[in-house]
């Protein structure tokens, strides 16, 4: 009905290759951006901004990072948490050494450090694939975590052994540190995530993305048609780790405001991997879906008993949440093994031909 492309003609190659060829999709994106930039800041309280939206966006970005590697290039990685950690610690060191440079620049630059480390640990991917590569990246996870605990220089020799986020301002407005409001932090996170998502979308729809996908689908064939595996795979590691690093730096500086190395443990890697798998491998929108399902859904479930006055103890509610989320994950994967993104695509297809079934 509303979602129908009748009458929308493509008159140029550019229009044909557009990421959102349908007008309604473009309107939808615009509406989402308006809601994110105008409506949420107006109506949002600290709980909505700080507990739901900021983490959701940060996890989405990390999931996009892992998706570029695992979903688009087909290289399984279990080191996401550690790569996020590299970003966070790099950002801390950078802002300690150069306190006058804008913190948002350091958040982005720290991604480059994460890239470099990612490339280093991506080297084995040239010789090994699949589970074997997962083990190699697992080594990265453990090694880097060990560094975060054992190298006091990384956390500025603080007695607590934790990253302590200093106050940094952006045009006079506190950006990080205790006095930064959740609204400024939210807007910063949102802008970074929007821009980087746009960049990622351009990468995967362009030559590089096609190279990655051909390596994923059959690396031998990709090599035969002239794609250099060495560069392609390392590039995937570099870009993926960049995204994870930026997400990690944002997590500590714009969300937590201080963190122990424990935050970047293996659980974090698994969490992001689950987001990618449930959201949909090889899709960008799936990264957002996965992050919403794994991160926001439990929070929503926990709020339900209290809001409806169900007399249930918090601990019991917590256990129930685990059970329900676990069950939902299984249900979703049984209904659609390709993840929520595929479900979304099917839904859109059905809407296009509605009311006819085909």
């Amino acid at each position, binding site marked *: 009905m509303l979602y129908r492309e009748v009458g929308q003609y493509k008159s140029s190659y550019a229009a044909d290759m557009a990421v959102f060829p349908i007008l309604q999709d473009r309107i939808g994106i615009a509406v989402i951006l308006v809601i994110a930039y105008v409506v949420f800041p107006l109506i949002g309280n600290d709980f909505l901004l700080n507990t739901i939206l900021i983490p959701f966006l940060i996890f989405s970005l990390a999931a996009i990072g892992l998706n570029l590697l695992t979903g688009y290039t087909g290289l399984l990685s279990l080191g996401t948490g550690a790569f996020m950690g590299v970003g966070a610690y790099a950002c801390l060191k950078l802002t300690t050494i150069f306190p006058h440079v804008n913190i948002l620049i350091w958040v982005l630059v720290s991604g480059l450090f994460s890239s470099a480390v990612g490339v280093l640990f991506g080297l084995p991917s040239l010789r090994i694939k699949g589970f074997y590569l997962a083990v190699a990246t697992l080594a990265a996870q453990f090694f880097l975590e060990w560094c975060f605990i054992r190298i006091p220089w990384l956390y500025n020799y603080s007695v*607590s*052994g934790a990253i302590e986020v200093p106050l940094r301002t952006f045009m006079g407005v506190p950006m990080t540190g205790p006095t930064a409001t959740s609204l400024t932090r939210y807007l910063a996170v949102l802008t970074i995530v929007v821009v980087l998502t746009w960049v990622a979308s351009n990468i995967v729809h362009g030559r590089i993305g096609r190279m990655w996908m051909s390596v994923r689908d059959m690396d031998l064939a990709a090599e035969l048609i002239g794609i250099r595996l060495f560069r392609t795979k390392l590039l995937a590691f570099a870009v993926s780790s960049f995204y994870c690093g930026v997400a990690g730096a944002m997590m500590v500086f714009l969300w937590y*405001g201080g963190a*122990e190395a424990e935050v970047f443990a293996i659980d974090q890697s698994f969490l992001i991997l689950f987001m990618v798998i449930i959201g949909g491998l090889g899709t960008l929108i799936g990264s957002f879906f996965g992050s919403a399902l794994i991160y926001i859904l439990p929070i929503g479930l926990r709020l339900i008993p209290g809001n409806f006055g169900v007399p249930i103890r918090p601990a019991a509610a917590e256990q129930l949440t685990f059970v329900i989320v676990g069950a939902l994950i299984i249900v979703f994967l049984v209904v659609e093994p390709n993840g929520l993104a595929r479900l979304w695509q099917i839904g859109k297809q059905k809407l296009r031909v509605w009311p006819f079934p085909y």
Partner: protein
Amino acid sequence: MRLKLLALGLALVIAAPAAVTAAQAEDGIYIPLMSYRTGPYSGAGIAIFNGMHDYLNMLNARDGGVGGVRLIVEECETGYDTKKGVECYDATKGKHPVVSTPYSTGITLQLIPKASVDKIPVLSMAYGLSASADGNDFPWVFNPPATYWDGASAFIRHIADVEGGFAKLKGKTIGLVHLDAPYGKEPIPLLQALAKDYGFTLKLYPVPGAQMQNQTSLWLDVRRDRPDWIFMQGWGAMNPTALKEAIKVSFPMDHFIGNWWAGGEDDVRPAGPEAKGYSALGFSGVGQNYPAIHDILKYVVDKGNTQTPKEKVGEVLYNRGVMNAVLIVEAIRGAQRLTGKKQVTGEDVRRGLETLNITEARWKELGLPDFAAPIHLSCADHNGHNGIYLARWDGTKWSKASGWIEPIKDKVLPLIDSAANSYVSANAGWPKRSEACDKSS
């Protein structure tokens, strides 16, 4: 069809958080408890939060609250997870809590910078950031009755007593079995300083967090080094594992001392009867033999108004929860006294905490005679560095095995100062103390 149902279900579930409504303004003092009754450390969490919950409920049932105002106690489950802890904090912030008790070092670190902004004092009872004992730099954070450095120094004082004086420590080897995380590493600088002063050798035995239950190689090192004493800064599953391994290498149990997070019933019980003689630091009494605990049994437990099984009342961690609740309530009483109002706010309770003074007589009045050492806080000192005692495990239960041991304050205080300074200098823009200082009551 199936798809539609699924979509509908999903929409409902996603829409649910939108249904969050502001808390009804109920009359009472709101105390949120960030509990961890689930997750890997729930064994300790259940006992602690049962103790806090039961004591506060007992006051509601016996006295109708504090100063005539009911206490509204609400638990928020964190599962010892920093993410969920911050979520809990944000979720309860709107209901004007008078104090936050994060009960995890990770969550405490998140809340320390927020405390002064949101005007909610943080009470981290003998955990969290040791440097926050400095009230001039951390006016909103309190960590009585002792820091980990006090604990480690009390351990050294105790072994000096046993060996016959500090001079006898010369040439001894002391081992520190610790969790390889910021919490576990905390006593290291203090013990190193003391090792230099008293001439003993310090050997470190770190246990990586992921290897808590696999310490065989570490204890082979212990057997090789043959330390005279071992101090354990342990947590969770690490404690019973260390005890079992110590028994295997036949390390003498009476020379093996844990800190206060390595001294619960569940930490030693799995090690079996051979763990007899192991001791651990503690700061709150054990057992049910206190009038206030009898009141808990009478007003709360016997009425079935609790999750605590009767025989668990009075265990070490349960009583620690009771003590934490006592500190909160005494701070609220102090705030009521200072301000003259009944319905106090977080700002008032901060003043109450700063003037906290629980003397021996006051402990007795509270129905907890000799339950803990007298606690006295001031504007500059948010910790008190109070006495600690040694509890010994006799194979079935803990019992007090020493008097109150004073920490070696002249070694601990400089460390606190330098740590607080480095925290403040690392956090450019850390607010200067602007809160006025009340006269101690």
